[in-house]
């Protein structure tokens, strides 16, 4: 039998970003023993890179704000494909989740009367984002990390051991979820440091692994974003939805090449920054789509007045939802009005005094100064779209975050539905808090309801260990040896070029063919050296997950013959009301394959509850819905 370190917990949370940490806090406060497993050191998760803020309708900056307005903005941003129940819970609970962070010690920027300051962001009607300069994600992570330390200190006082009931397993990767009779029984993985195997015996697993950005060449995402949770869930029998919707953030750095893709916060535009093309034109006024006509300023004078008087003026189209802005930039560059390094200009220097820029956007100032030799208080930045977020993910019950596999829960970016076809900026940090907490509660209630705990089968552990070390065995069955770094680069290039921001049927087919080729070659991946802190081996294992989620994205994108949110097709440029109601569901057959075949099936969404539907005017709904769907609307009947 393989040598495996064994641990037993009530709940195991995979991922230590915002959603994971919030789930840990909730499950521990319910009295359960909890392990949190993360690929990086504790406190380094991708959430630290979130800049602009956390959306919550506290109404501190504009008293007109409330959950209904936030709900409407979220549904519009997602082009009405969102899971409306998730959007409702999110809008209602976000303020409480933000205030709760203050009791953990968070220090947000303040209003003049001492409350939490809120800033403007794309697609949000009112200033709504609680923030700390442009490092809000770091504040969230650190706050919850420190809350977890305080829970450990309480356990130390009570049990004499900091880790009696809550332990962080840092630099540890889970490669397999284990089940007994269809229920979760455990999770298997390895310590990155030593390569030794580790087994968690647990009835409940919360996936909070984030996104899939490392399948694309130009991305704002860190190396951890390899779709682990998406792939683990699929292989355990859960479904993914909305995988065709990938958000390209309009403003990533474009130069120098080594930093291409690094995020430039939307807060630059929220605080007054404007987009310009090579002719100095503020081009966004030409890109207000029909569904948003009337909601945005159509001239510069009104747009500029809006910053000071939002009630009497309409907002600037620089702050349209991200999908719209990214497409506009793409078009400007394609039509020859781009900046020297293939982006457009983002100008804050001519809009705010230098001191104010450094105060409000310190890490942007620092980032451009250090990495690109650009002083953003004196000259414009060059920016272009970068792969930023996947709207698609594990299909969950909105209230409990439970997937279709008993014992398996998911929250944050790796779950799907909340953001529909496009996420609004600022709605990610609030999503993490709201659904991280719900996943912790959901998992706790599930564990408490169990009469007996599922058992881990020894044979499953042996099989998982064999699969994990396969890359050391060398190529088999006449397959050529492959370098994991080379295969990864080829995968990223294909996804970037062929399933990127603008998609075409023949290109997506080419990507699917390429992925099939990589699928054949991946059996030949061979790594050198031993299991102790071996990045080549780590990549070889992550690569399987990236391939599986890339196939989901490419196949679902080919199937959806319309353009909506984070899915834009050159050959089907219009939004189609017949598609609004359809979700594309990805699943895999039960198999021993490391990268099993993906099946895509369409299914209808549950219709929106009537009281929520009535929050919208009929004239707006008509832009998205079919005639049949609106037959019962009160305005129609009247």
């Amino acid at each position, binding site marked *: 039998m393989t040598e495996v370190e064994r641990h037993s917990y009530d709940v195991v949370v995979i991922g230590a970003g915002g959603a994971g940490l919030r789930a840990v806090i909730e499950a521990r406060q319910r009295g359960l023993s909890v392990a949190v497993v993360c690929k*990086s*050191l504790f406190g*380094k998760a*991708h959430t*630290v*890179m979130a800049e602009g803020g956390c959306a919550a309708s506290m109404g501190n900056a504009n008293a007109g704000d409330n959950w209904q307005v936030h709900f409407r903005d979220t549904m519009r941003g997602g082009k009405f494909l969102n899971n409306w129940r998730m959007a409702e819970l999110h809008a209602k609970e976000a303020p*409480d989740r933000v*205030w*709760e962070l203050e*009791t*953990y*010690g968070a*220090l*947000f*920027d*303040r209003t003049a*009367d*001492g*409350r939490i300051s809120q800033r403007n962001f794309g697609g949000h009607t009112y200033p709504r984002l609680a923030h*700390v*300069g442009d*490092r809000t994600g*770091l504040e969230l992570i*650190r706050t919850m990390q*420190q809350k977890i*330390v*305080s829970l*450990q*200190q309480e356990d*130390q006082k009570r049990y004499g051991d*900091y880790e009696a009931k809550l332990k962080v397993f840092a630099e540890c990767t889970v490669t397999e979820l284990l089940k007994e009779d269809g229920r979760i029984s455990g999770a298997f993985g390895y310590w990155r*440091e030593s390569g030794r195997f580790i087994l968690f015996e647990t009835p409940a697993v919360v996936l909070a692994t984030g996104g899939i950005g490392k399948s694309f060449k130009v991305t704002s995402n*860190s*190396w951890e974003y390899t779709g682990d949770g998406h792939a683990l869930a699929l292989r355990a029998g859960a479904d993914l939805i909305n995988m065709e919707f990938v958000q390209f953030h309009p403003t990533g750095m474009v*130069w*120098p*090449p*080594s*930093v291409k893709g*690094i*995020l430039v916060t939307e807060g630059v535009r929220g605080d007054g920054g404007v987009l310009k093309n090579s002719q100095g034109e503020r081009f966004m006024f030409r890109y207000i789509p029909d569904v948003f006509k009337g909601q945005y300023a159509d001239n510069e004078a009104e747009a500029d007045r809006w910053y000071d008087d939002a009630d009497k003026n309409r907002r600037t189209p620089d702050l349209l939802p991200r999908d719209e802005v990214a497409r506009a930039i793409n078009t400007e560059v394609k039509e020859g009005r781009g900046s020297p390094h293939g982006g457009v200009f983002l100008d804050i220097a001519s809009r705010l005094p230098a001191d104010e820029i450094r105060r409000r956007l*310190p*890490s942007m100032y*620092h*980032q451009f100064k*250090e*990495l*690109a030799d650009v002083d953003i208080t004196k000259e414009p930045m060059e920016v272009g779209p970068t792969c930023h977020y996947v709207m698609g993910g594990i299909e969950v019950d909105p209230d409990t975050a439970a997937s279709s596999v008993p014992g398996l829960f998911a929250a944050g970016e790796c779950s799907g539905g909340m953001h529909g076809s496009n996420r609004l900026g600022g709605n990610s940090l609030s999503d993490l808090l709201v659904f991280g907490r719900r996943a912790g509660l959901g998992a706790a209630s599930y564990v408490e309801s169990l009469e007996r705990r599922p058992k881990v089968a020894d044979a499953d552990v042996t099989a998982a260990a064999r699969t994990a070390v396969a890359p050391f065995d060398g190529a088999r069955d006449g397959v050529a040896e492959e*370098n*994991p*770094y*080379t295969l990864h680069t080829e995968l990223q290039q294909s996804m970037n070029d062929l399933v990127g921001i603008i998609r075409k049927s023949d290109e997506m087919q080419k990507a699917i063919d390429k992925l099939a080729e990589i699928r054949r070659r991946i059996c030949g991946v061979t*790594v*050198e*050296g031993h299991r*102790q*802190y*071996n*990045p080549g*081996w780590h990549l070889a294992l992550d690569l399987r997950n990236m391939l599986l989620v890339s196939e989901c994205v490419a196949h679902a994108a080919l199937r959806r013959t319309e353009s909506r949110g984070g899915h834009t097709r050159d050959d089907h440029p219009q939004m189609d009301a017949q598609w609004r109601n359809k979700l594309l569901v990805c699943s895999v057959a039960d198999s021993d394959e490391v990268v099993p075949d993906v099946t895509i099936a369409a299914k209808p969404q549950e219709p929106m509850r009537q009281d929520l539907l009535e929050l919208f005017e009929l004239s707006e709904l008509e832009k998205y819905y079919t005639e049949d769907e609106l037959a019962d609307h009160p305005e129609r009947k009247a």
Partner: protein
Amino acid sequence: MGYQAKLRVWRGDDGSGDLQDFTVEANEGEVVLDLIHRLQATQVPDLAVRWNCKAGKCGSCSAEVNGRPRLLCMTRMSIFSEDETITVTPMRTFPVIRDLVTDVSYNYTKAREIPSFTPPEDLKPGEYRMQQVDVQRSQEFRKCIECFLCQDTCHVIRDHEENKTAFAGPRYLMRIAELEMHPLDVADRRNEAQTDHGLGYCNITKCCTEVCPENIHITDNALIPMKERVADRRYDPIVWLGNKLFRRNGG
């Protein structure tokens, strides 16, 4: 534009190791971490390096470049001449795991020893009121990305393993200052800063401030004010007299 850069990288584990020479391509705008990644992809696939965001925000890729503690992702190749050999070694203060990766668990141990934020008991969520000027002081310290370069460079522990038990290091002394200056924290942390966390070991040489990639004024804004507060508390003649008078009553 590109050239062949000379890199000397420490390779080994907790048992033994040595500096190894490599020649690797460098392109315009690149940072040292780009070259380490290129080495992994083309010459030494098992070269161990810790990294994460590659944007100076997570503080994972801390190491020493030509002996100076730095983030590999924020060290531009353009600060070196093309014929210079660039030496990359792991942080010296922490035990090596493998190659450029060190065991930084000392820091997590110290983090757990600092008493947590203690809010007033009667304050409900949503009722917190603080002024920007008051939160700003602690906010500066909360910019910390926990890269541990200040811990690495601090001479109290850099070559003095024996001080590690008694000394929390600049990062965690700054954490005490942050909580002490938090407008709503009700705990008094002054005595323990000295007795339990080793504030007295710091002799304000400002090495920590110099290496901080976030440019936090650790010494001037956190450590010195903290020392002043401790002095006020511990050496206040009235407090001293009170302690004398009431000690026998168990006060």
